[in-house]
């Protein structure tokens, strides 16, 4: 039990409990306690675990990451974080530093008495009922050690609550910054986003780092959507090249709701993203798009689940990967159609571009279909740059390297252009340009 640092986190939990100073009573703390108990039972997954077959978390298990238990600005000013925000971007900016909400770095425009955005810690005090009704109800921790660990240390993160019939015009930008602390730390933001009926918002979750240190981000976001609610959710992951990043996005959709996610994975040495859209209301729709760009010895694993729980729901999915160097990608796209989910229409595509002989991808659709009136298509491709296209460009005077970049870029833009938040889309194009400029070997 000790070899995978389970006891380290159990010990850390005891420190954490003490730091809560008497706030360790109440419903939330009961959840924390059962989560740490469950974590101690589960331990970190191994590659014998079907869900982790291609992703070995041994390097992460070997480090005693210190949980960050409270907010510390670490001297950050708004100026320091500007480079992580799109230029000239009008948005609701909700910043967390090492997993803790920063009042001073955040700037909320759309706050009204009814629209709430801010820290989860604060919400646990002021909106306890709403928080308890959802927190941990969707992202269950019983079968997932990382979710259990996050839940055990649940303390802060971002809380967004948008009531019925409310459209929040300005995007809500969640920025999770990791700073250059002396210790190897784990930051575990926990986010809860609740949208009422007929409401609409676009939400960005961005992960960035001020150092190239080794640290560990273990985040969980729960999204709850009422009837006919609409969300566009973007995730932009630009962690340090040496960081570990494990994240889970769990979406619960009501009737006729529409959830769109565009997920971009650029940074991190060992990355695992889980995103689950549960279409738990008739006529709801989910779109999951993603782009992963890996180099060197990066390992990026995307596990997605389209959970069709009710009839007449549509899901669309496009994940694209660009893998250079000795990097490794994993894509597992689960389409789960439950017994009642008749008239399901699900489409899934995964395309991969391998830029070197040493890069690899394990891609797998996972269909679990229990209804009989279902349309479901899926396809995966793995390829190199097209020799004919390269030649065409070069035959017009474009240098070999530029021609390669142009084709890789075209492959990626397909996903970037699906982002509706214009300023973010521009920023993603810039990030992509810079990444390709660094070389892709």
């Amino acid at each position, binding site marked *: 039990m000790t070899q995978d640092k389970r006891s380290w986190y159990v010990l850390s939990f005891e420190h954490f409990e003490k730091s809560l100073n008497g706030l360790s009573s109440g419903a939330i703390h009961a959840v924390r306690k059962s989560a740490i108990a469950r974590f101690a039972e589960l331990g970190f997954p191994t590659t014998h675990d079907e869900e982790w077959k291609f992703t070995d978390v041994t390097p992460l298990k070997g480090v005693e990451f210190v949980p960050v238990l409270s907010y510390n600005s670490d001297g950050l000013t708004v100026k320091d974080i500007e480079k992580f925000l799109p230029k000239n971007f009008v948005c609701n900016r909700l910043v967390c530093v090492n997993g803790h909400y920063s009042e001073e770095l955040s700037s909320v425009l759309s706050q009204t008495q009814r629209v709430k955005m801010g820290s989860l810690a604060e919400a646990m005090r002021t909106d306890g009922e709403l928080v308890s009704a959802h927190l941990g109800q969707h992202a269950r921790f019983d079968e997932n050690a990382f979710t259990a660990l996050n839940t055990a240390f649940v303390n802060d993160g971002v809380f967004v609550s948008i009531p019925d019939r409310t459209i929040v015009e300005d995007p809500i930008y969640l920025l999770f910054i990791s700073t250059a602390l002396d210790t190897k730390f784990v930051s575990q933001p926990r986010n809860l986003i609740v949208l009422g009926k007929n409401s609409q918002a676009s939400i960005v979750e961005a992960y960035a780092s001020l150092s190239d240190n080794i640290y560990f981000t273990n985040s969980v976001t729960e999204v709850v959507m009422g009837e006919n609610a609409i969300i566009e959710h973007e995730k932009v992951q630009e962690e340090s090249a040496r960081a570990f990043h494990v994240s889970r996005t769990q979406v619960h959709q009501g009737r006729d709701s529409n959830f769109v996610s565009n997920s971009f994975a650029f940074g991190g040495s060992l990355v695992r993203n889980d995103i689950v859209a549960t279409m738990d209301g008739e006529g709801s729709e989910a779109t999951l798009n993603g782009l992963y760009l890996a180099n060197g010895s990066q390992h990026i694993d995307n596990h997605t689940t389209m959970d069709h729980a009710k009839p007449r729901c549509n899901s669309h999915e496009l994940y694209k990967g660009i893998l250079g160097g000795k990097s490794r990608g994993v894509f597992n796209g689960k389409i789960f159609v439950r017994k009642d989910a008749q008239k399901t229409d699900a489409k899934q595509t995964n395309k991969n571009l391998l830029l070197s002989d040493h890069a690899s991808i394990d891609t797998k659709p996972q269909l679990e279909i229990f209804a009989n009136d279902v349309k479901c298509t899926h396809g995966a491709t793995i390829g190199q740059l097209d020799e004919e296209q390269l030649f*065409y460009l070069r035959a017009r005077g474009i240098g070999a390297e530029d021609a390669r970049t142009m084709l890789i870029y075209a492959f990626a833009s397909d996903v970037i252009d699906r982002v509706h938040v214009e300023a973010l889309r521009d920023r993603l194009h810039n990030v992509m340009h810079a990444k390709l400029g660094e070389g892709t070997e």
Partner: protein
Amino acid sequence: MLEIINLHAGVQGNEILDGVNLKVNVGEVHAIMGPNGSGKSTLAQVLAGRESFNVTEGQVLYDGKDLLAMSPEDRARAGVFMAFQYPVEIPGVSNTYFLKAGLNAIRKQRGLEELDAMEFLKLVKEKAKLVEMEEGLLNRPVNHGFSGGEKKRNEIFQMAVLEPRLAILDETDSGLDIDALRIVADGINKLRGKHNAIILVTHYQRLLNYVVPDFVHVLVDGRIVKSGGKELALKLEEKGYDWVREPVELNT
């Protein structure tokens, strides 16, 4: 300008070109005809630098320089242009964006200033008009979803923008209706001049009515088996290729 000497080339040990000899001087238009599979496109692609073909013997001199030693982009920058028989579709790369990159690389090589976005747009509009290409096609991804005729016209449009010294047009006339054919022919005739040379690969006399060649060559089984003036094309149309295959004719 171009001298092809005993060129042998193929793919994976499979010889396609079996000793091609051809000399093209500046100002000339040469037509290359020949049956399907005789190696016309292979010749065009080898000249443009396609790496999937291996040259096993012979050499090609371009302005006295070893053309085969140059990369495809260096050939383009030196003024070689090949219009593809089957232009590839490139989703995600806009037609004008890629052409601007190509043109500026070529201009740089020629010691000219690079064009900025405005200047380029002006040039492109002018040339699009010349080949009667719909402006809508300019900003679409390269050849993506273009009709057969639109793809051919796009090749001629690119030629008009890049103004090559040596243009090799591989069946640019195939699949065109008569109006399009006339436009393509006009485009070629506009380029034709004292400073350029053109190689036309074609199956049909009808293009040669508009673009009258100085020489016609017949390529059969990877060799030029007959060369002549513009009358040769007429005779080929009338008698077919079997006529040139006959050894008796070969010896004349």
